[in-house]
């Protein structure tokens, strides 16, 4: 046997995309760092610490993208029952949790000098934390199921219920209390300085690309894990247990 008989469909395409994304991200990350630490003017009132904003907001975008994609792929999985869709849902949830962790870590670092506290019961902090807890639960559920098929089904349900819950959680916590700075115009702020907006767009794009790169790699890893598992199964079947001589 010289070559694997057949590669799963879509492998060549995703391999190429993965390489292209890798090159793009490798170029963009130093550019972002330059933009954040050299090019962008220091914020007038908050000072240097405001620069963490260029990590915080893009991570939040990537985190929410993860949660959204997880719901999308969960729904598609329940419809088509394709293992690849489940791998995508799982990878999206994992990355969502990872990027939300970055959001929850960078937030307090900024809040301490600016608000004077590490953490408050403020609305967006709380809803992000709740979201993080929900999807951390998703990952724990996946580890606790008895077989992958069951894990895929149960997690798809959680992914969908979670997506329905996110807007309700958001509004309930918002009504409960709100004080988060509304910087971007969409959320009612007065908008950013042109230089800052440019840097933010650049960093957000980079983070989204990084997200996609990690997503493809995680899916490939999942596929390899599946392959190892099935090969182990075959090997075990071919070599029945023999009494030692």
């Amino acid at each position, binding site marked *: 046997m010289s070559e694997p008989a057949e590669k799963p469909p879509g492998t060549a395409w995703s391999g190429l995309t993965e390489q292209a994304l890798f090159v793009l991200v490798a170029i963009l990350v130093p550019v972002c760092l330059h933009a954040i630490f050299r090019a962008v003017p220091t914020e007038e009132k908050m000072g240097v610490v405001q620069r963490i904003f260029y990590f915080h907001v893009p991570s939040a975008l990537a985190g929410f993208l993860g949660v959204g994609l997880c719901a999308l792929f969960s729904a598609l999985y*329940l419809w088509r029952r394709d293992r690849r869709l489940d791998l995508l849902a799982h990878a999206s949830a994992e990355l969502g949790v990872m990027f939300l962790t970055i959001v929850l870590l960078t937030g307090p670092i900024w809040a301490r000098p600016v608000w004077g506290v590490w953490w408050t019961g403020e609305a967006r902090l709380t809803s992000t934390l*709740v*979201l993080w*807890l*929900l999807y951390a*639960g*998703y990952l*724990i*559920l996946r580890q*606790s*199921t*008895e077989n992958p098929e*069951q894990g895929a*089904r*149960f997690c*798809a*349900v*959680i992914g*969908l*219920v*979670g997506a*329905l*819950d996110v807007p*309700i*959680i958001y*509004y*309930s*916590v918002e*009504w*409960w209390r709100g004080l988060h700075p509304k910087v971007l115009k969409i959320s009612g702020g007065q908008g950013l300085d042109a230089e800052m907006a440019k840097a933010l767009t650049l960093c957000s794009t980079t983070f989204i690309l990084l997200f996609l790169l990690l997503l493809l790699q995680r899916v490939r890893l999942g596929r390899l894990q599946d392959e190892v598992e099935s090969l182990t199964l075959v090997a075990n079947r071919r070599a029945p247990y023999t009494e030692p001589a």
Partner: protein
Amino acid sequence: MTYLRAVLLVAEKDLKVELRSREQVVTLLFFALLVLVVFNFAFDFTVIDFVTLGPGVLWVAFIFSGVLAISRSFQIEREQDRIQGILLAPIDRSAFYLGKVAATVLFMAAVETILVPVAVVMFNFRFNSQTALVVLAFILNTIGFAAVGTLFAAMTTSTRRAELLLPLLLFPAAVPVALAAVKTTTHLLAGHPFAAYSHWVLMSAAYDVIFLAAAVLLFDEALEE
């Protein structure tokens, strides 16, 4: 057999089991009571107004005992594989789900009915005519909690960490219920007009409808095959 009749039969079965064994509601009640007692020690209610902390304390007690009720509700089906019998029965699986939700709501309501007067006495609160509306808030939020909890419990009981996983998944998902319940109760006890908390009541109602509908559609996937 009509759909509604199937729902009622499942609920009736759970109630019969409970009436004969009388183990669940009593245990839940004592557990909820203990939570109140713990809070009674933790906060000095002679200094703090009941309206400020009371609703939160009450709902922590309801939610904790509710999680126990929900996970128990599926554990009894797992014992001796009773669930197989129900899955083989010629009823829609979502009817089984709705019956379970109905029974859980009744158990939780029983606990709530007994616990509220106890709390009122314990924390020296004075009732007025409007406070009776609290019942509505309790029912709406209990349904929402039981709706999501029952869907999740169907999944978690067949996993390795059943008892641990249910609260882990349910508490974050039920945050809107907890907030709406506490806020509505606070407004009601403080005697505010309906306009002050109508959005919370609406949210609770919307939560109930959305998740009951979602669970009816998804319940098939949540069962072990």
